[in-house]
C-alpha cells in the first residue's frame, strides 16, 4: 500500500522569509504522526502545502497517492489552526453544510451529524447558533466538521488549544479511536507534551527544516541525557555528598529532589546502584528526556553549530 503522504525537497518562501526549506517526509498509512516545533517553525505552512491551500515553490508532494490534495479532498479531514464557524448559522446546519462540501450524501448527512454531536456530548445544542457556544464547544464542533466525512487522512493543527482538561481528554480519546479505525493522522502542536501523549512518530520542525523524524521510543533512546532523578530520605543532604559518589559529574537541586548528571562511561544502572548504596533514597530513577528537552538540545546544538560556522567563515 502506498504512503498517505510523501514529500520530497519541499521549499516555500514568503518574500524574504524561507518558511520551509528542503523538507522530506514520509507518513505511512494508519500512523499517528506528531508535527512539533515552536510557533513560526513552518508546521502550518507544511500542512497548508499538503492540503494544497498554498503551493510549494519547488519539491514533490503526494497525498493519498495523488499529486495534489485537491484531487482527494473528500478523503482528507482538516482542522486548521486558524479556524472558525459561521456565527449566525445553527450548529447542525453548519456541520451538515461542511459535510456536504466534503461529499457526504444528503441521505446520510443528518444521521451522521447527529451521531457525532452525541459522541461529543453536544446533541442538545444542535439548534443553537454557533455564536451562542463557548469556545470549547465551538472547538468540538470544528473537530466534528473535520471528521464527519470519515476521512482517510486527518490533519489536526493545534486541536487542543482552548480546551479544558476534560474536553482535552475526550478529544484525545476520539483521535486515538479514529486512528485505531485505520485513519492516518497528522497532529501538529507547539505543546510538545501533547504530542508525547498521543503520537507514535514525531516530526520536529525548526526554522523551516525537519530536524527530527523518528518513532518516539527511538528518539528517547537516542537523546538519553544521562541524568538521574534522586530524592534522598534526608532532605538535608547537600551537593558535596552527592558529588562524592564516584561517576557523578554534577548535582542540581530541583523541586522534585536532585538531578544528577553522570560522567561519560558510567551506565545509568551502575550509577543508581552506587547512589542508593551511598545515600538512603525514597526515589532513584533514570530521567526520561521530554520532547521539550530534546527540542531545546537540538536548538542549542543548532545555535552552537551556527556560531561555529560563522566564526570559521570569519576566520577564513
Amino acid at each position, binding site marked *: 500500500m502506498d504512503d498517505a503522504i510523501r514529500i520530497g525537497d519541499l521549499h516555500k518562501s514568503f518574500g524574504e522569509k524561507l518558511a520551509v526549506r528542503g523538507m522530506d517526509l514520509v507518513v505511512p498509512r494508519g500512523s499517528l504522526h506528531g508535527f512539533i516545533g515552536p510557533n513560526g517553525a513552518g508546521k502550518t505552512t507544511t500542512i497548508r502545502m499538503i492540503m494544497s491551500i498554498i503551493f510549494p515553490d519547488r519539491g514533490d508532494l503526494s497525498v493519498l497517492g495523488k499529486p495534489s490534495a*485537491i484531487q482527494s*479532498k473528500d478523503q482528507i479531514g482538516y482542522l486548521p489552526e*486558524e479556524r472558525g464557524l459561521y456565527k449566525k448559522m445553527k450548529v447542525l446546519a453548519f456541520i451538515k453544510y461542511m459535510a456536504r462540501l466534503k461529499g457526504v450524501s444528503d441521505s446520510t448527512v443528518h444521521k451522521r451529524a447527529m451521531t457525532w454531536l452525541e459522541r461529543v456530548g453536544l446533541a442538545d445544542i444542535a439548534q443553537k447558533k454557533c455564536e451562542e457556544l463557548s469556545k470549547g464547544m465551538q472547538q468540538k464542533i470544528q473537530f466534528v466538521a473535520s471528521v464527519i466525512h470519515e476521512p482517510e487522512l486527518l490533519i489536526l493543527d493545534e486541536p487542543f488549544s482552548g480546551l479544558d482538561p476534560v474536553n482535552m481528554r475526550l478529544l484525545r480519546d476520539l483521535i486515538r479511536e479514529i486512528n485505531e479505525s485505520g485513519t492516518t493522522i497528522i497532529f501538529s502542536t507547539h505543546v510538545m507534551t501533547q504530542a508525547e501523549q498521543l503520537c507514535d512518530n514525531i516530526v520536529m520542525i525548526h526554522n523551516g527544516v525537519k530536524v527530527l523524524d523518528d518513532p518516539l521510543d527511538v528518539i528517547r533512546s537516542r537523546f538519553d541525557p544521562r541524568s538521574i532523578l534522586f530524592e534522598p530520605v534526608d532532605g538535608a543532604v547537600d551537593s558535596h555528598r552527592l558529588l562524592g559518589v564516584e561517576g557523578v559529574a554534577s548535582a542540581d537541586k530541583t523541586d522534585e529532589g536532585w538531578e544528577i548528571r553522570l560522567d561519560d562511561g558510567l551506565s545509568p544502572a551502575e550509577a543508581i546502584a552506587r547512589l542508593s548504596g551511598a545515600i538512603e533514597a525514597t526515589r532513584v530513577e533514570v530521567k526520561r528526556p521530554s520532547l521539550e528537552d530534546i527540542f531545546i538540545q537540538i536548538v542549542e546544538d543548532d545555535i552552537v553549530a551556527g556560531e561555529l560556522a560563522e566564526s570559521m567563515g570569519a576566520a577564513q
Partner: protein
Amino acid sequence: MNRMFLIAWREFASTALTKGFIIGGFVVPAVILVVMITLLPILLKDEGPAITGEVSIIDNSGVVAEDIARRLSIEVLTAEAMPIEVPEIDPENPPKPEETAAMLSSVMPSAVPELTVNTLALDTDVEEAKELLREGTADDGGLLALAVIDENAVATMDVDANGVPKFGAFQLFVKPRLKDKVQSTIRRSISDSIREARLEQAGLSPEMINSLTRVNAGRTKEITEEGERDSIGGLNMLLPGGFMILMMMAVMIGGQYLLTTTVEEKSSRVVEVLLSAVSPMQLMTGKILGQLMVGLLIMIVYGGVGITGLVFAAMADIIDAMIIFWLFAFFLLAYIQIASMMAAVGSAVNEMREAQSLMTPVMAIMMIPYLLWMPVAMNPSGTFAVVCSFLPPVNSFMMIVRIASTEPPALWQILVSLAISVVSSYIILRGAAKIFRVGLLMYGKPPNLKTLIKWIRMA
C-alpha cells in the same frame, strides 16, 4: 460544480432569507412607497394654521389701495383657494387608492391668510412704519408687511426714446420668516391691482386683454396602438436613468454583501476550513453566484414594481422586451466586474474598517455612471454617449441608458459594448481571483494597491 452551488446557495440564503434583508429590502421600501402614493400629497397640502396679521399700504399713486384691500380680503382669497371643480365619484367604478389621494389633495382648500389692510397717510414716515415690522415674529400677528407704491406706478408722464411710458414700481417690506406663500400672495395682489389700473388708465379693458393674451392648449396626447394617452414627456428622460439606477442598485447591493460576507469569513477564520473542502476559485465563484442571485432578486422585485406601475398607468408599451433582455445581460457583466473587485478587497483585509481605503477606487468607479447618465440620456446618440458606452468598466451602465433612451443605439454598438464588457469582466475576474487566493490566508497589515498588484503578479 455541486460544491460551488452549495456555497452559492448558502451565500444567497444567509443574505436574502433573513428577516433583516426582507424587512430592509422589501417591507420598508413598500411601506414608504404606499405612504408616498397615498398620504404624502394630502400631508403636503396641509399647510398648518393660517397666518393672521396686517398689511399696511402707502399708496402714493392714490388709485390702487382699495383694490389691493379687496384682493387681499378673506372672501377673495378663499374663493381663489377653492378648487375649480370637484370631481364626481362613480360608485360603480370607485377610484384607485393613488387616484383617491390625488383627488383628495385637489379638493382640499389650502390655508388662507387672514389679512387686514390698512391704508396709511401719504405723509407717513416710511422708516417709522418699518419699525413696526421689527417687533415680534410673523406668527405673532401684528404688522406683517408694508407696501410702498410709487406715485407714478399707475400713471406717468415719463416716456423713453420710443415713446413707451416709464412707470414707477412698488416696494414691499415684510417681517422676517414670513411664509413665502403669504409674501407672494401680497406681491401678486399688488401687481395685479397696478396692472389693471394701468390698463384702465390706458382705456383698455382688463378682461379683454386677459382674454386676448391667454392661449388655452389641451394636453399633448400620444397616439399608441391601444389608443391615446397623455404624453409621458419627462418620462422619456427619466426612464433610462431609472433603468441604470435599478441596475446600479442591484449590482451595488449584491457587491456590498459579497464584500461583507468575505470579510466575515476571513475574520471569523472559517475560510481555511472552507479551503480544505473547495479551491479558492470555487469558493469565490460560488460566493459571486450566490450574491448574483441576491442582485437578481432585487432587480426583479424593484423592476417588477416599476413595470407594474407602468402597466397600471397604461404605459407599459414604453418598455420594449429587448430592453429587459439587455438589462439582464449588461447587469450580469457589470455585476461580475464589481463583485470580483469586492471579493478581492474582502479577501485582502481583516475587517470592514480596513476595506474602506481599498474601496475608494471601486466607489469612484461606481460614481461615474451617476454623474454621466444625465448628459448621455439627453443626447444618447452624441459622440460623448457613444464613447462612454464603450469605456469599461462603466460601459454597461451607459449602454443601458442609451438602450432605454428615445434614440436606441444600433445593434452593432450594443454588441461591441457587450463584447467589451465580456473581455473586461474576464480580465477583472482573473485579477480578482489571484488576489483572492493570496489574500484569504494573509493576516496582519492590510495591503495597499501596490501590494495587491504584487499579489496578482505573484499568484
